[in-house]
Structure formats: structure tokens, C-alpha cells
């Protein structure tokens, strides 16, 4: 198999700041979390979230309070870390509607804390700000139309008094959007869709694309069959990072709708790529089409983070994107130029990345067409990394080791496009899919960015769907679908400590320091999906085909999620 075509020469990584999307907002990373101390970690809290869906958020530690937002119907809790028994300081349950229950099952519930406000989104399309001290509602605004299948996706990102949010409904044929609210009032500052005419998308004079140099207008229309863009998908996928140097928001766009690719001939811009937008105006600055005419509907999911490193002798802040399509991209945030791209898992769908355009070279054997099943497409749904929803399954980069720790899935899939009919508010997919694979179906991959290959990997029976936390002290924390929460040595991947939580883990671990000075790590358990007792695994296509590839995954004895906190003595 021809390897990825782009080559990197020598890269020397320097120590630098990493802005992981779902990482801890305020709390500093306690240096005590190192290889020597890992075996002494003990559970000090196992608080039921009382929700059995995918508990896929991260908690946020701010001062002496730990904030947790449960899956839908959301419940917010402020837990006092400075009091014995960790009592709840306050809790708040926003109004919910049952209609959103199914839709909201997989959303990421990570909140954000900024300027004394706790910001979060709900499964029924509300963006809410609470006073972090008291839990009083400061504002509550509806920003997504759940009746159409539109969701607010991923955690809010706060930049200079603006709350950046994305919406997503790719599987429902919703045109996804990015928007900014005023953090003080909740008033909307701007909103642009990721698909549609230039005016809707925010494409104007300041827009350049390295891969698509011609400046033809309305490419978000002409790269679709007439009118198809209106149900085009392309919601927020890989999370939002803020590049302070260029004042750019950079985010992935989701897959084009429907999954069935034959009814959407064309490149389907601006789906399945990376956008950079001006933070003040929302106007698009550049776009990288990662998967033009995304055949397998994986979108530009996965994780997106910034790392300061030495590239060809120059110290630069670059983007590292471990993508659902199985490639790690190194990207210049100034103009979106792809500097390097290599497969980090076995990939059959494509054979490498074209050095000129940065787009994948298709493998004709893995082409798909209506009413016929293509077998052995790798990666399989929801992609080689990421949980299939923005903000889930983030990788972590540790400047000290120069390694990007990727929570990977090694599943492949069989895919059969069928007829797709658009009915508002119902899924617009039109394909049968079943995942396939035998253990190891997952791995924690330590990707050496300098030499573009794995330094080591920890193999796992099941795909990793949660995020990775890498501590300054040199530990890598991650959870597995069979309920283990593990700490590996960041240098060589030796698993130094593990804990059985009793339910699958699909959330993002977070490190913080307790008020008494002890180092702590928090993670939510509870995986939803296949663990849901409403799934009948005899249907190989059930739970997005997980019923086939993960048929031996034991359901938890208790599917209710729990917030675990572990601390050093």
C-alpha cells in the first residue's frame, strides 16, 4: 500500500502550550500525577449521574467547585470540593422536553466556566449561562431547532466575552452552523452555516483556500446537485480551537447528508473539512477540503488541537488534527496549508494524501454504489478516532515527549447505500452499515509527530471512544468501552494503574488539584449506545452497526453513569 505521500523532514518539538478542546478550563495540571504516584490513585467519589445514556462530557474544576452536566435531560451540579463528603453546593435542572430524548442521547455535555459564569448547552437546543457561585440563571436562549434534528454540538468555547457554539444535525439533513453569543447577555452576535450560498456561509473577500485556489462564487451550491445543499449536513464536527495569533476559530465540518453518496454527486462543499473563521465577525478565512464528496459519511471528525513546536527549524504554533478518516494532519493555522499527513491506523478507503490538494487518494476497490454492499472499508463508523460527536474522543499532545496520544478505533465496516428520502425531522441517511473487526479493535496510539509514525501503542479489545488526558507529570489517562479507566506511562505506554468503573467510558478525563492540595483526576462512566438495553444485537446494523463489530461487548450490570474522582493520598 502506498504510504501517505506528504513527507516531513526533521521536526524538533519544543516545550509549548497545548490547547486541548475539551481539556480543563481553569484548573492547573497537578505535576504530582506522574509514573511513580499513579499506583497510589484511589477513588474518592463515585456520584451517580442518574442518566443511562452516553455520559460523554468532561467535568470542569474551577476554584473549589467541580461542575458536572449530566446527559439529557440535563442536570447541572456544582460540587463543593472543600467540604467533607463533597456535598452539592447547588444544582439546576433546565426545562426539558421528551421529544429530544432520542436525539440528545449522544451529545457531549462539557460545560465551560468563564468570568464567573457557567455556560452549557442542552439537548433541546438551549444555550444557558448560570452564575457559577449561586446557580442563578443569567440567560437562556434557544439556538437550535430540535424538531428538525438540529442539536447544539459540543462544549461552548469562550473567547473574549463571546460564547462560540456549533450546531449539528448531519444525520437529519440539517445544515450545520457556527454561532457566537455575547457571554454577558446571550444575544447572538453572528451565525453562519457551513453549507449553502457564500452569504450564508460567511465567505467574502477575506477568504482563501490553498486547496481550492479559484475564487468562483457559491461553491457551496455548485458542488451539489441542484438544491441538495439545503439538506447538506456539514455541522460542527472536530471541536473548535482558538488561534490567538491569527484570531481565528478553527473547526471541523461534519459529513454531507445523506450517507447515500449517489444522490449528492459533486464535492459537497463545505462539508467534511476544516474551516477557519474570524472570531469577531464569523467570516470564513480558509477551508481545507479533507474528504471531498465524503463517500463514507465520516466527516472531519476526530480531534483538533494546537501545539507549539519547532517545524523545520522555526518555532511555530501548528494544528494537529487526528481525523476520522485515519490520518494525522499537521496544518499551518495561518492559511490552512497541510504540511504533513500520514495514516495512524490501517486504512483501506484511501491510499494516501495528495501532496498538491491535500485530499485523500481513493481506493477504487472501496468505492460504494447504491444497492450494493462494499466490504472491508477501513476506518469504519464513526471513524478512526473520535466518538462520532464533536468534542468526544479528543487526543492529547505532550510537548515533553513530542507524542500525540490518539484514542483510536480499528473497526472497519461494510456499507450499502440505499434509497434516501428527505422527511424533515427524521434521519436522512439511506444506507445500511455494520462495523467489523476482531480484537484489538482499539488502541491508544502514541503518534510521534516528528517522524510521523507511532512510537508505541496500547492495544485494546474495544475501540476507544472517550478522550485522552496527558499530564505534565507524564501520565496518559483514558477509558475503555468495557469500563476500565487506565493510566499509562507517557514515555513507553506501560499501563501503571487501572480501575474498573462498571460501565463503559466515552468521556474526557480531567486533572485538577483539590483544595487540600492533592492531585485528582475525574472521569464520567456510562457509555450508552450498544450498552442501551433497547438495542437488539441480532441486527448487525443496530446502534450504527456497532451490534456487529462489538457483539461481544458485555452490557454493564448498571447502565447509569457515574462521576468518578480519583486522588493521590
Amino acid at each position: 500500500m502506498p504510504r501517505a505521500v506528504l513527507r516531513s523532514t526533521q521536526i524538533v518539538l519544543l516545550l509549548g502550550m497545548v490547547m486541548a478542546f475539551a481539556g480543563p478550563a481553569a484548573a492547573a495540571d497537578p505535576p504530582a500525577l506522574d509514573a511513580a504516584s499513579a499506583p497510589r490513585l484511589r477513588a474518592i467519589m463515585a456520584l451517580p449521574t442518574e442518566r443511562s445514556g452516553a455520559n460523554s462530557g468532561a467535568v470542569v474544576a474551577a476554584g473549589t467547585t467541580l461542575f458536572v452536566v449530566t446527559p439529557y435531560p440535563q442536570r447541572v451540579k456544582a460540587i463543593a470540593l472543600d467540604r467533607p463528603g463533597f456535598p452539592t453546593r447547588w444544582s439546576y435542572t433546565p426545562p426539558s422536553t421528551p421529544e429530544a430524548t432520542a436525539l440528545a442521547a449522544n451529545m457531549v455535555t462539557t460545560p465551560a466556566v468563564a468570568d464567573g459564569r457557567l455556560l452549557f448547552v442542552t439537548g433541546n437546543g438551549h444555550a444557558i449561562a448560570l452564575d457559577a457561585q449561586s446557580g442563578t440563571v443569567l440567560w437562556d436562549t434557544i439556538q437550535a431547532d430540535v424538531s428538525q434534528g438540529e442539536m447544539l454540538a459540543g462544549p461552548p468555547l469562550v473567547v473574549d466575552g463571546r460564547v462560540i457554539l456549533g450546531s449539528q444535525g448531519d444525520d437529519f439533513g440539517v445544515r450545520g452552523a457556527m454561532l457566537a453569543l455575547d457571554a454577558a447577555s446571550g444575544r447572538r452576535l453572528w451565525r453562519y452555516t457551513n453549507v449553502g450560498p457564500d452569504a450564508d456561509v460567511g465567505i467574502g473577500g477575506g477568504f482563501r483556500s490553498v486547496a481550492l485556489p479559484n475564487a468562483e462564487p457559491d461553491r457551496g451550491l455548485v458542488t451539489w446537485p441542484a438544491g441538495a445543499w439545503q439538506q447538506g449536513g456539514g455541522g460542527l464536527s472536530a471541536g473548535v480551537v482558538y488561534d490567538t495569533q491569527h484570531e481565528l476559530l478553527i473547526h471541523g465540518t461534519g459529513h454531507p447528508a445523506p450517507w447515500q453518496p449517489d444522490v449528492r454527486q459533486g464535492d459537497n462543499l463545505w462539508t467534511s473539512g476544516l474551516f477557519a473563521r474570524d472570531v469577531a465577525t464569523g467570516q470564513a478565512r480558509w477551508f481545507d477540503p479533507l474528504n471531498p464528496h465524503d463517500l463514507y459519511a465520516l466527516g472531519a471528525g476526530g480531534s483538533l488541537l494546537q501545539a507549539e513546536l519547532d517545524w523545520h527549524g522555526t518555532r511555530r504554533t501548528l494544528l494537529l488534527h487526528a481525523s476520522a478518516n485515519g490520518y494525522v494532519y499537521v496544518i499551518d493555522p495561518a492559511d490552512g496549508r497541510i504540511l504533513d499527513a500520514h495514516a495512524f491506523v490501517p486504512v483501506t478507503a484511501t491510499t494516501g494524501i495528495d501532496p498538491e490538494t491535500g485530499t485523500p487518494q481513493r481506493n477504487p476497490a472501496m468505492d460504494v454504489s447504491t444497492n450494493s454492499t462494499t466490504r472491508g472499508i477501513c476506518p469504519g463508523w464513526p471513524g478512526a478516532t473520535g466518538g462520532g460527536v464533536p468534542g468526544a474522543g479528543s487526543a492529547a499532545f505532550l510537548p515533553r515527549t513530542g507524542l500525540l496520544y490518539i484514542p483510536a478505533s480499528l473497526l472497519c465496516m461494510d456499507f450499502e447505500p440505499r434509497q434516501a428520502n428527505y422527511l424533515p425531522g427524521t434521519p436522512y441517511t439511506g444506507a445500511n452499515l455494520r462495523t467489523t473487526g476482531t480484537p484489538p479493535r482499539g488502541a491508544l496510539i502514541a503518534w510521534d509527530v516528528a517522524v510521523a509514525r507511532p512510537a508505541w501503542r496500547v492495544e485494546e479489545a474495544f475501540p476507544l471512544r472517550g478522550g485522552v488526558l496527558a499530564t505534565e507529570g507524564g501520565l496518559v489517562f483514558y477509558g475503555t468501552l468495557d469500563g476500565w479507566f487506565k493510566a499509562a506511562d507517557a514515555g513507553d505506554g506501560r499501563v501503571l494503574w487501572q480501575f474498573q468503573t462498571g460501565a463503559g467510558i466515552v468521556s474526557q478525563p480531567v486533572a485538577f488539584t483539590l483544595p487540600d492540595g492533592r492531585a485528582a483526576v475525574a472521569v464520567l462512566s456510562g457509555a450508552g449506545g450498544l450498552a442501551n438495553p433497547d438495542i437488539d444485537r441480532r441486527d448487525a446494523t443496530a446502534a450504527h452497526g456497532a451490534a456487529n463489530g462489538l457483539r461481544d461487548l458485555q452490557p454493564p450490570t448498571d447502565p447509569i453513569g457515574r462521576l468518578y474522582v480519583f486522588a493521590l493520598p
Partner: protein
Amino acid sequence: MIERCVLFAVLSLTACKREMRDLRSDPPEAAALDQVRPMENRIGGAAPRIMYALGQPYEGNAYQLNQGKRLYDWFGCKGCHAQGGGVIGPALMDGWWRYGSDPVSIYLSLRDGRPNGMPAFGQRMTTDQMWQLTGYIRSLGSYRPSTAAPSRNDEMQARPAENRGPAAAALIARPSR
């Protein structure tokens, strides 16, 4: 030899018994077919009287059940229920029902929707189509094999065929909710 011929002749005669297929109900008939009388909790209730007059055509008629299967694909039920095993909506083939397994309950689930995210299809389908789907859904979650239910797929074969009474096998173990 003669016996064999006779047997063959008898078999082919029975095989030729034509199944009735009503392609589309007359408008008054369709209106009557929508006259379900649900219980107050919207689970179960009385089927429209005309259903019995028509000989319950949507239960054991292979044509109607096959139409139901096609509609299941066309109306995107798969997006939420997969091929019966469930995705964001619950499994329909495991023999467990939140709102009852009888035709009226399923018809009501389809026509009016259900609170936790099941959309209403009453404005999107004809009464005939809803009954065809109801019959098909019942074959998906049936405990008894049925000769009328579809036996094969022209698509990815992902689960036991409907005519085998798939729910029976699921009875063995059911994890607690």
C-alpha cells in the same frame, strides 16, 4: 409413479391458491380504517370494525407485509430503528414493547408518534400504508414463525428473517433497564 403425479398435482393446486391483494383502499374504506378507538393512555384499544369485515388483511397477507417492509425503508424508519435492532429509537424486533404489541398500539405509535422522540407519520402516509407498516412491525417483533412475513432481503442481510418470529429468541435474556 401415479401416486407421485397425483401428489404433485395436488400440491401445485394448493400452491396456486391466489392471495388477495387489495392495492389501495377506497376513500370511505380508508377513512373507516383510521377509526381506531384507543384507550385513554394511548396504549391498545379497539381496532376499526371494518378491519374484521375485511378479514384483517394486514396481518397475514404476504403482499401487505412486503409493502410494509418497503415503506419501512422509504420512510426512513431505519435511521432510528436500524433493521429492527434500534439506533436512537428502540429495537422493534426484541418482543419488548413500550406501548404494546397489538396492532392498535403500533398503529397509534406510527400515526400520532410517541413522546420520547418518535415522530408522528399520520400526515405523511396514507391509512393503508400505516396499516401495512403496522403488520410488518408486528412480524418483526413476532414470537411465532409466519409464512406470510418476508423471508429474505434484497439488501444487506443483517438479522434473522421476519418469517422466523425473531422475538422468540430474544426472550431468553433481557438486561434490566
